[in-house]
């Protein structure tokens, strides 16, 4: 436990140290202020943006789009994964496709999505969804593969219905892998949506960052970048803590 704590503190020290270093480099003008503003200024400008409510709509748009893409990808990915798992022949056909899935640069299709759906949040949801779903499918397959056969034998000896064995045995047994799927799906929907907003969109955090960049508005650009980074780190950190708790319980000594 104290070793765990030590690792945790080291991590915090690395992050704080890097921020302080960047701060110092900027203040000493070793880094050109036109290139990078000091982190303290980013934070101040972010605070300003938040309290004046200038970015509220962007934040709301990005988060609601991410949330929709995430939920859709998790549900669809899980169902697809379970179906593919149940059909070994389909499995053999799609396994190589899944393995090479992330080598496809989906963003080249983004303009096509806009042509299809118009310049609104639907193309963003689609791109986030497409990006995240495969991760959930792969994690679901992984998890279901690793449920020991003896557990399903146990449910049969206990004469459980198939729905209750899925609910009470298969899902908890696969939970660590499903959780990895959730984590990846969240990260990928986030990346997909923000990247899409960057390329072409009428609002959202990615759009605002790109807009600030085009208008040489470093204060806003860096503030929003910081915001996205902090949010992504906090979300991931929270999921990580939860995951560790689950895994520690199960780790074979």
């Amino acid at each position, binding site marked *: 436990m104290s070793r765990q704590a030590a690792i945790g503190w080291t991590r915090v020290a690395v992050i704080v140290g890097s921020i302080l270093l960047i701060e110092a480099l900027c203040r000493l003008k070793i880094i050109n202020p036109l290139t990078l503003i000091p982190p303290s200024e980013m934070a101040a400008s972010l605070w300003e943006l938040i309290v004046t409510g200038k970015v509220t709509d962007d934040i709301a748009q990005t988060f609601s789009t991410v949330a929709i893409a995430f939920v859709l990808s998790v549900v669809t990915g899980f169902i697809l994964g379970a179906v593919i798992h149940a059909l070994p022949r389909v499995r053999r056909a799609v396994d190589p496709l899944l393995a090479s899935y992330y080598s496809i640069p989906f963003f080249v299709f983004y303009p096509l999505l806009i042509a299809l759906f118009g310049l609104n949040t639907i193309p963003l949801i689609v791109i986030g969804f497409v990006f995240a779903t495969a991760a959930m499918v792969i994690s679901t397959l992984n998890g279901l593969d690793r449920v020991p056969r003896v557990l399903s034998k146990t449910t049969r*000896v206990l004469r459980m219905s198939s729905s209750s064995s899925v609910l009470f*045995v298969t899902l908890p047994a696969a939970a660590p892998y499903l959780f990895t799927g959730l984590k990846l799906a969240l990260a990928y929907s986030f990346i997909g949506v923000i990247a899409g907003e960057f390329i072409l969109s009428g609002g959202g955090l990615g759009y605002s960052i790109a807009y600030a960049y085009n208008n040489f508005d470093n204060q806003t650009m860096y503030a929003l970048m910081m915001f996205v980074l902090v949010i992504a780190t906090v979300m991931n950190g929270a999921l990580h803590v939860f995951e560790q708790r*689950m895994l520690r319980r*199960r780790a*074979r*000594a």
Partner: protein
Amino acid sequence: MSAGVAVAQAQTATAQAKVHARLRGVTRVFEGKLSVHALGPLDLDLPRGEFFSVVGPSGCGKSTLMDLIAGLSPPTEGTVTFEDKPVAGEVPDGIGAVFQEDASFPWLTVRDNIAFGLRRAGVDPAETQRRVEYAIGFMGLREFATAYPAQLSGGMRQRVCIARTLVMQPRLILLDEPFGALDQQTRLLMGDELLRLWRETGATVMLITHALDEAAMLSDRVGVMSARPGRFIDVITTGWSRERDSNIVADPAFGVVTARLWSLLRGESLKAIGAKGA
């Protein structure tokens, strides 16, 4: 004349009623690229309340036999009946099984693992608690009731699985090398517990084991299997009283039974490990 036939039929009927599980002409072939003839053909009658052990060389089909009796996998040929009803497609009510592999649920505490089956079956909570606490004590898991399986040794995890099976109060208990992960001394003590349980519940027990002394000490009868495809080359009746315990290892008759088992198995075990000219 007709009275005589009726008596004969009645006798057959009682003889059959005493048989708890019955296998007739059972074989099991695993189809695949290489089809594996794992078991049989074999016949077996397990009388109600008997303690029956199965010994045999590794890979001879012992676990396969257990799956067939439990209705977990269908025989390729032949029939399995339990309590006079054919076993087909599902596990009949009244059978409990402890598998060779660890089947504890890593996400549940020892207590919740043991209560699992009762909760799923909707047994009333007070009764569930009573049975679970009894089984925890019985299996020596009191200190670990709130631990997770990951914190237990392999032998203790196996005890959790035994307890989880016992609380369901099965009438036929199938045990596949449940003490495989235990040292010899603990094994003998667990054997005593198993005998105590068997006497208390009146259940029929089929124990698969690779320890000949364990089979000799615990059983009413020991079935000795051949190398794959497994068949019974002999079934030895030990003749112990129901009140036996591990002290029987000091009885000269115990040595005789163990020696007999070994002489039957030696050649088969050599075959199983691929030696020639056994």
